[in-house]
């Protein structure tokens, strides 16, 4: 077993806002090994993006953070404000059209990091950029090198962003909903590209999305995030096949799937909690149908069930018999 390239231990991030302190990330721990893809699923406001910014070393100035993050065994400074982005980590954003500089040719945007960060000469940097463009599947890179972002489609812009993310030879690529803005057929191409890149370059990928099916198709392991903490973690087969947290179970029953006809959808009642005024106890308790009195107090952090799975639910035994309805039907 190799040492993980990314280690996050008990990460806490608090953001001060006019409404009070927002507890965006509350005690998150996980590891990602080289060449692996780890998915993080969560709804909007669950703290996914803040978690990524912490790993990138780019927390906003109103943030205070605790815990540790290490990338290739080097600690990431957690100070908020104008920190410097961490070496070896790069990010692919959701909106490919707005993440590129509209007045700089895409080739120059890709060769920027090789030139100024890796110290290559102008020509070497250009060759490196062309090589990366070929790697991410941009046909005719010599011609496209001189294109401006507006001349590219959404799918090609996203490929350019991935090339930029790869250009500084990172150990970890963070992906913040990279295909949400894309069409289904283009999304499929980009997901395949991520799989190929992690196989060919051995880079670790942290893939954040709200789409369970995308995670199931891209990642080997997954964590389910809710109200700033992980409620369940494990391999895809374990977490989606035998969920051991009522929230995961609820999500799986609430999402329609293309492979299914009219299996009735069961909505999760209520809405996610406000991260300003969080009480103690399990954050999912107000929406949980398995809740008991003992769920109202204490700290709910992940505990390991077996080699493949861990859950934050203290009543996970109550769930063990009840696989999601549609799984039972399918078999």
């Amino acid at each position, binding site marked *: 077993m190799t040492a993980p390239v990314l280690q996050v231990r008990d990460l806490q991030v608090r953001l001060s806002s006019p409404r009070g302190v927002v507890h965006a990330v509350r005690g998150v721990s996980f590891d990602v090994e080289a060449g692996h893809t780890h998915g993080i699923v969560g709804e909007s406001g669950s703290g996914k993006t803040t978690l990524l910014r912490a790993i990138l070393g780019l927390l906003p100035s109103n943030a205070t953070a605790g815990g540790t993050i290490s990338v290739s065994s080097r600690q990431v400074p957690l100070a908020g404000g104008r920190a410097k982005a961490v070496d070896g980590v790069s990010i692919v954003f959701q909106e490919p059209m707005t993440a590129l500089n509209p007045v700089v040719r895409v080739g120059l945007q890709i060769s920027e990091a090789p030139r100024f960060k890796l110290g290559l000469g102008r020509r070497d940097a250009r060759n490196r950029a062309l090589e990366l463009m070929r790697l991410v599947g941009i046909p005719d890179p010599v011609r496209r090198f001189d294109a401006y972002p507006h001349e590219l489609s959404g799918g090609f812009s996203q490929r350019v962003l991935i090339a930029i993310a790869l250009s500084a030879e990172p150990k970890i690529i963070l992906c913040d909903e990279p295909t949400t803005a894309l069409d289904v057929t283009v999304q499929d191409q980009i997901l395949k590209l991520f799989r190929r890149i992690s196989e060919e370059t051995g880079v670790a990928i942290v893939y954040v999305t709200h789409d369970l099916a995308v995670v*199931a198709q891209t990642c080997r392991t997954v964590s389910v995030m809710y109200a700033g903490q992980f409620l369940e973690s494990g391999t895809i087969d374990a977490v989606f096949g035998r969920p051991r947290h009522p929230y995961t179970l609820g999500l799986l029953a609430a999402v329609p*799937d293309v492979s299914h006809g009219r299996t009735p959808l069961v909505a999760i009642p209520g809405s996610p909690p406000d991260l300003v005024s969080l009480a103690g106890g399990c954050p999912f308790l107000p929406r949980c149908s398995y809740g008991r009195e003992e769920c109202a107090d204490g700290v709910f952090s992940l505990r390991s069930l077996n080699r493949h799975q861990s859950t934050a639910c203290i009543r996970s035994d109550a769930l063990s018999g009840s696989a999601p309805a549609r799984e039972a039907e*399918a078999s």
Partner: protein
Amino acid sequence: MTPPPILEARGLTKTFSSRRSVGDVVFRRPSEELQALEGVSFQVVRGESLGIVGESGCGKSTLARCLVGLYPPTSGQTVYEGTVFEHKRAFSDRKKIQIVFQDPYSSLNARMTIGQALREVLAVHKVVASDRVAARAVELLALVGLDSEIANVYPRQLSGGQRQRVNIARALAVEPEVLIADEPVSALDVSIQATVLNLLASLRERLGLTLILIAHDLSVVRYLCDRVAVMYMGRIVEMAPTETLFEDPRHPYTQALLAAAPSLERKSRDDARSIGGDPPSPFDLPEGCHFHPRCPMATDHCTTARPPLQEGPDDPGRQAACHYAWEPPPSHHSPLIPREPREENRR
């Protein structure tokens, strides 16, 4: 014999012209034309739910707006119960077809309480007697599963799911026969989507609504619709009953869409059917079949002849716009891409 359709689109075509600069006018440069809809025809019977799926830019939303009367079509007609709706619709005709928009955050007036917004619709359209307006607004909120207290709050105080319910209540206020939902859940969180989808399903049943659901998400359409039309670049390329379409898609584009849709269960990917390339620019559509540059089955015939939307030989309920939807390409049409590995995949 099928019942007469409640709503019919007859050859709806919509062309937008690009904005022209002063220079374009001075030098008499022609404006570029974007064909958003190209001869879209379909019929919907009362109580049916029709899904319209396609990728961004395929003309789904333009179609919705033409049907509701927000855009005048360049040519073609919207026919409601046998009468043609002019673009400038009579006041009473506007009530028949209503729409729910995608973005629940921008489609409510931020300076009106929910109650005011609903009462305005009821009063303007004189749906109920003036002394019943307030009571009816509360009834409408109850219909979509919201408390009467919601009437006194402003949109900003509501969550996305609640706002979308309000939008549905507002559309239902005039008691329409046909409800068009344009991406009703794509802006909502996953755990909330199910509540809105289930609401639409139950409203359809309770009120006998005819539903036209526009979505890019195939799973949403499969969940709610009886019949599905797949659009690509302004045209319907395939239309069939939902289960038939998902189980046995005939158009290569439908096959590609289904192969590309991520699923929790399908672990092994049907890579043979997935496609490369991007959708073409709508200003510069390919000759012949719009899909031929990305199509794994295209032959030289497809580059010149545009296939019409045709019924299957032994299956009048399904239509596909592909030369080879019902039979494989004849040998004298040379394929653009070598086709051997695909043969086994075709049923």
